[in-house]
C-alpha cells in the first residue's frame, strides 16, 4: 500500500511541476489584471521550441533556452494585443492558443518526422533526503527542471507578495488601472512585465513537459495543462500559497488516474479529470471560503476613459 502511495505522491509532484511553473507566472499576470488564457499556447510553443532546440543543438540546456525565448515571444504578442491595442483578452487568449496549436502541429510535421527520442533531463536524486519514506522520492528525486519549478514558484510567491512594493504595485494595477495611473504607477509597463513573466515561466513549463517528462514532442502535448494552470490560480483564489497547494493537489488527482487501476479501484477517469474544475468552481463562487477576483481583471487600461 505504501508503495502505491509513494507512487501516487511522486507522480503527483512530477505532474505538478509544469503546472506550478505556469501558474506562478499566471498568478502575477492575473493579479495585474490580464487574464492570460494564452498560457496554454505559451506552454505549447515552449514545448515545441524546447524540443526543436534540443534536437538541433543536441543539448537539453539549449532547448530550455529556446523554450524560454518562445514563451516570451507568444507573451509579447499577447501583451501587445491586450495592453497596447486593448483587444479583448478572452478572444486573443483563446485564439493565440489556436495559433500555437496550429503552428506547432504544422512545424512538427516538417521537423519531427522520424519520431526519435531527444536529449532530455534525467532525475537527480538528492543523496540522503530521497531515502525518506513516502515523501522522499516525491520531493527529492526530480529533474533539474523540476527543482527549478519549485524554486521559481517559491521565489515568485515570496518576492512578489504584498510585503514588497512590487507586489503592491501589481495588485494596484489589477484592481483599478485609473487610480494606479493617478498614483504614478507605470500601468502599461507593469502589465507588460507581468505578461512577459508568464511567458517565461510558461515556456519553462513547456520545456519541462517535452524534455523532462517524455523527451519528445507530440501534437498538442500540453493538452489543456495551460488552462489547468489558469484554473489553479482561480482555485487558489488569486493568492500564492493556495495556488501552489492547488497545483500539487491537481497533480495528485492526475496521478491517481494512472494509479487507481493498479490498486484495483474503478474510478471513472473523467471524474478524476474533472475534480480540479469543480474545486475551482466551488472556490470562485465562494461556497468554500471567501474569494474575490482582481476587479480590473480583463479590463483594458486607457487613460482617457
Amino acid at each position, binding site marked *: 500500500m505504501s508503495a502505491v502511495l509513494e507512487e501516487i505522491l511522486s507522480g503527483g509532484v512530477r505532474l505538478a511541476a509544469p503546472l506550478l511553473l505556469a501558474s506562478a507566472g499566471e498568478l502575477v499576470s492575473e493579479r495585474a489584471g490580464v487574464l492570460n488564457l494564452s498560457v496554454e499556447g505559451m506552454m505549447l510553443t515552449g514545448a515545441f521550441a524546447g524540443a526543436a532546440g534540443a534536437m538541433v543543438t543536441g543539448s537539453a540546456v539549449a532547448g530550455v533556452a529556446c523554450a524560454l525565448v518562445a514563451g516570451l515571444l507568444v507573451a509579447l504578442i499577447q501583451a501587445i494585443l491586450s495592453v497596447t491595442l486593448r483587444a479583448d483578452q478572452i478572444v486573443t487568449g483563446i485564439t493565440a492558443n489556436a495559433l500555437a496549436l496550429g503552428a506547432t502541429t*504544422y512545424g512538427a510535421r516538417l521537423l519531427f518526422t522520424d519520431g526519435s527520442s531527444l536529449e532530455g533531463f534525467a532525475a537527480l536524486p538528492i543523496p540522503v533526503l530521497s531515502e525518506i519514506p513516502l515523501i522522499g522520492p516525491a520531493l527529492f528525486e526530480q529533474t533539474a527542471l523540476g527543482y527549478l519549478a519549485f524554486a521559481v514558484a517559491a521565489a515568485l510567491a515570496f518576492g512578489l507578495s504584498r510585503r514588497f512594493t512590487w507586489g503592491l504595485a501589481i495588485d494596484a494595477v489589477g484592481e483599478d488601472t485609473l487610480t494606479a495611473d493617478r498614483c504614478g504607477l507605470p500601468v502599461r509597463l507593469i502589465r507588460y512585465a507581468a505578461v512577459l513573466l508568464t511567458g517565461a515561466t510558461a515556456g519553462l513549463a513547456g520545456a519541462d513537459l517535452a524534455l523532462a517528462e517524455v523527451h519528445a514532442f507530440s501534437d498538442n502535448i500540453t493538452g489543456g495543462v495551460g488552462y489547468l494552470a489558469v*484554473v489553479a490560480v482561480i482555485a487558489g483564489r488569486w493568492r500564492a500559497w493556495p495556488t501552489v497547494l492547488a497545483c500539487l493537489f491537481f497533480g495528485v488527482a492526475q496521478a491517481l488516474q494512472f494509479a487507481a487501476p493498479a490498486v484495483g479501484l474503478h474510478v471513472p477517469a473523467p471524474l478524476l479529470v474533472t475534480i480540479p474544475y469543480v474545486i475551482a468552481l466551488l472556490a470562485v463562487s465562494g461556497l468554500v471560503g471567501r474569494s474575490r477576483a482582481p476587479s480590473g481583471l480583463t479590463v483594458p487600461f486607457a487613460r482617457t476613459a
Partner: protein
Amino acid sequence: MIAAVRHPVFVGAVAAIVAACAGLLLAAGAGTSPAVAVDALVEGMTGTPYAIGSSLNTAAVLALIAAGFTVAYRAGLVNVGGEGQLCVGGVTGAAAGLALPQGVPGWIGVPVVLIAGFAGGAAWASIAGLLKAKRGTSEVITTLLLNFVGAGVLALAVHEEALLRQPVTSAETLPQSAPLPPGARLPLIGSIESPATLIVVLAVAAALIVALVLRHTPTGLRLTAVGHSPAASARLGLGVARLEVGGLAVAGGLAGAAGACLVATAPYVLAEHFSSGYGFTGLVVGLLARGSLTAVLAIALLFGLLTNGGINLQLAAGVPAASVQVVQSLLVLLIAASMIWTRKGAR
C-alpha cells in the same frame, strides 16, 4: 477617406489578405505551389455539393452558438461556456433520442432531440447565471470552468455503459453511444448529394428571431438596459437577476441545441470530441460580430468555409490542415487587434 479606411469591412478585408498570404507561405513551406493549394482550398469550400453542404453545416453550428452569445452579450454577460453547453446539450439530446422507440416518426423525434439539447445547454448555463445573480461571481470565470466540467460529463456519458455507451461486445467497441433512431435524425435539405441538414434553416431562423427580439420587443429593451447598467435597471424595477439568468440560459440553450444537432447529424452517435472545439470558435464568432446578427451569419459562414476548405487542403494538396488553423487564428488576431481603430471610427 479616413472613415472608409476605418470601416470594419475594409479592415476585415486587409486582415484576410494578410492572413491569406501567411497561408500561402505555409503551403509553400510544405512543398505545395500556391495554385495547387488555392485550388484545393476552394474545392473543399464550395467545389462540390458535398463541400457546400458540410461548410453550411459547420457554419450553422457556429451561428447558433454565436447568436446565443449575442443575447447574453446584450445583457452585459460574456458567455465563454459555449463549449461546455454544447457538450451537455449533445449528451441530453442523445439521451432523449436514444430513449425514443426505433420507429418514432420524424416530426416527433427531431423536436424531442432539439428541445432536450436546448434544455440541457440552458440548464448548464443557468448554473453560471444563478451564481452571477445570487453571489455576483464573474460569469467569465464560471462559464470557462463549466466548459471543462461539461467535457467531463460528456466523457463520462460515453465511457460508462450505465449511461450512454453502446453495449460493449468486444475490446474494439468504441467509447460512443449507439446510433440515434432514424426518426431522431435531422432531415437533409436541398440537393441529394449535399449533407446540409435542417440545422442550416434552424441557424438562420435563430439569428432572425434573436435579431427581432433584441431590436423590436420589450424584452430586448430590458436586456439592453441591464447590459448598460444593472444598477439603474434595478432602480427602474426590472428583474435584473431574472434577465441575467434568462439571457445566459438562452445562450446556453442555443449552444446546447447546436450540440444536439451535431449528434443528430451523420454518423448519428455521441462520441468524445464530437464538438471539435466549435464552442470556442462560436464564442470567437460572437465576439467578433459585436452584437450584429448579420455579422454573426457572415463570420460563421466564413469560418465554416475555411474549416472545410482546410480539411480538403490536407486531403488533396498534402498541406497540413493545421495551416488553416494558423490562417484562421491569424485572421481573428488581426481583426481583434484592429478593433481599436474601427471603434474610434464609429465614435
